[in-house]
């Protein structure tokens, strides 16, 4: 082979220098990249918006609700939803939304109460009305509501239950328990999972073996019976707050295994990575490697797992409360609300009692979308090659 040759040169000077390579994009860390990739995931962003709304509602539920969720209206038992409208029964358009009042009578054949729209009574809706008193986060007292009837007439957007309580206000009130039980439960599983999974991955050997078998056993226990057994041990005399925490612990007892597995897996994989080897080679000890390299690198994966664990928790709480062994009234959660929809007759006659289930579905889907988006965004080596 002849490598000493050169090419013919022309009269023109060969002095052009262009450096496309050096036109560098501005520096961006993995976090920024992750955010950018997440933003491209439309469903995940939508899920995130929904979740933000839900949690805002969970915090300011008294403000968003139209009445006190515990207030009974004995004259409006099982009232159907009355949706706001702009056009009245004569076809006139009203700039302000309004609802019609309800007339009730007893059906002489079935002895059921039947509601009819009362076209005589038209209550227009307005924003920021005064109504029932409530507390925000249990501290700030207020009676201002996001919206309501201008004249203070009762408003049942999503109907009422067997005691004539407003379902809309109750679903809104249930948000705080149903959505936070997931968060607190997940935090507990996160702590357990990080500790146990980290131990398993770090120590290895027999410890790892034992922990892995325990995880396998726990993961193969059918969840509902296990939860039922555990919740049955919660004393009936406990206050709703105590029960709430007891249920959280019950839920997280099973779900930490998932986090632990991810943590262990990432630990083992990353420990073999060349950059970790390089750190050891320059004299780093275990703690240096764990804190500077391992944790930052698997944190995003843990975040993903955690996001995907929350919906399980929400469903867990809903199932337990629905079966009557989780939280108990007077606490309000979506599961407790769904208890009323336990028989076909109710569902057939009063389908609005199923509405809390719709909110469960929306919340769970939103969490799953966000989790998927995070998962796709978390891998530092996807999509930015090519």
């Amino acid at each position, binding site marked *: 082979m002849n490598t000493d040759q050169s090419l013919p040169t022309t009269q023109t000077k060969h002095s052009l220098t262009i450096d496309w390579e050096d036109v*560098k994009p501005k520096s961006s860390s993995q976090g920024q990249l992750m955010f950018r990739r997440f933003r491209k995931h439309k469903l995940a962003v939508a899920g995130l918006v929904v979740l933000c709304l839900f949690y805002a509602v969970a915090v300011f539920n008294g403000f968003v609700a139209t009445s006190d969720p515990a207030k009974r209206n004995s004259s409006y038992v099982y009232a159907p939803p009355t949706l706001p409208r702009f056009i009245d029964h004569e076809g006139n358009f009203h700039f302000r939304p309004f609802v019609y009042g309800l007339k009730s009578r007893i059906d002489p054949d079935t002895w059921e109460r039947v509601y009819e729209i009362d076209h005589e009574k038209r209550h227009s809706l307005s924003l920021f009305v005064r109504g029932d008193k409530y507390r925000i986060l249990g501290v700030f007292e207020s009676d201002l509501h996001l919206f309501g009837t201008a004249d203070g007439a009762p408003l049942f957007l999503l109907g009422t239950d067997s005691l004539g309580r407003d379902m809309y206000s109750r679903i809104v009130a249930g948000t705080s328990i149903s959505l936070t039980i997931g968060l607190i439960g997940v935090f507990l599983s996160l702590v357990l999972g990080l500790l146990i999974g980290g131990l398993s991955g770090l120590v290895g050997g027999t410890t790892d073996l034992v922990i892995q078998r325990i995880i396998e056993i726990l993961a193969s226990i059918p969840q509902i019976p296990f939860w039922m057994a555990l919740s049955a041990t919660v004393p009936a005399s406990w206050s709703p707050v105590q029960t709430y925490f007891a249920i959280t612990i019950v839920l997280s007892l099973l779900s930490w295994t998932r986090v632990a597995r991810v943590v262990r897996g990432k630990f083992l994989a990353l420990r073999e990575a*060349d950059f970790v080897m390089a*750190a050891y080679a320059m004299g780093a*000890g275990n703690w240096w490697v764990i804190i500077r390299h391992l944790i930052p690198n698997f944190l995003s994966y843990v975040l993903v797992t955690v996001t995907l664990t929350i919906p399980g928790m929400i469903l867990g709480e809903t199932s337990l409360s629905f079966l009557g062994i989780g939280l108990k009234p007077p606490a309000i959660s979506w599961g407790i609300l769904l208890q009323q929809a336990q028989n076909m007759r109710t569902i057939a006659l009063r389908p609005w009692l199923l509405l809390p289930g719709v909110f469960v579905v929306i919340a769970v889907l939103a969490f799953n979308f966000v989790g998927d988006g995070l998962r796709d965004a978390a891998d530092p080596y996807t999509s930015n090659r090519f």
Partner: protein
Amino acid sequence: MTSKLLEICGLKKYFPIRRGLLRRPAGYIRAVDDVSFFVRQGETLGVVGESGCGKTTMARCVLRLIEPTEGSISYWNRAGEQIILNRLNRQELKETRRDIQIVFQDPFSSLDPRMSVFDIISEPLRLHRIGDHRAQAERVAELLELVGLKAYHMDLYPHEFSGGQRQRIGIARALALNPRLVVCDEPVSALDVSVQAQVINLLRDLQEQMGLTYMFIAHDLSVVEHISDRVMVMYLGKVVEIASSEALYLTPKHPYTEALLMAVPIPDPRRKVKRLPLEGAVPDPSNPPGGCSFHTRCPYSTKVCRTSEPVLMELEGEPDRFVACHHASEITLTGWAERLSRG
């Protein structure tokens, strides 16, 4: 002849194969099996061999990234004292590690994706608490220029660089502590051909400037031959031949070395040689053949090769030339020059 910097004696690394519920070892993979050699101050010792020959495991044992099963690793420090690397305690080891560094093969996994280039290159400085932040930044800038990058690159993240540039960052990190020995584990195998040459040249320049000693591991015989003063050939966890790189390719003494030389495709269409490739594949390292481990594929093997294992010995009359073959003095093997002239 310059003095030794590193000497490995009887190094063994056996990995247990664990099976069953209790994961009892059911056998051992002899990744490195009784390897002895030395590296001289200032030279480049090339290590070649096919996958599974134990070259990477050997390198990691030298760096004590994995604990050897048996054997000793001696290192002579700047004061000329002999240090047995595998007998050091943690603190002593940390000190000695400043002198021995490693460059990895994969330019993607060798840099922590969540760290900026400054964090990556200054990590060894921070570990050994050398200098304050400003001094470290100056040192990082200096190192970046040294490896052909720009000082402003320190604010960027690894994913913003090409493979070759990342490899340069890896080299800068290895040089941060002014090491004496750098173990290069396939440093150019993952790079494009045109970039490979840049990194090879860079490594040569750095060696000249800083008086570095290299242990250069690769599977590409032409790369190893190009950069090395001496070359060590490994097969199935054992050293089969050590020689100066010139002697190795001109007059190979081990049949396996010959086979490697015959197998390399030559980038020259006028030298298409009819060659007889080696038959078969590398045997399973958990169940190596008895006797000479190469006898299953060796065209020169005789009865003695199947029964007794040859020892790595210095050839008579040829100092610095070690071969592990029963027939080293009897057989005449084809070297590179003859391979070319045959075409």
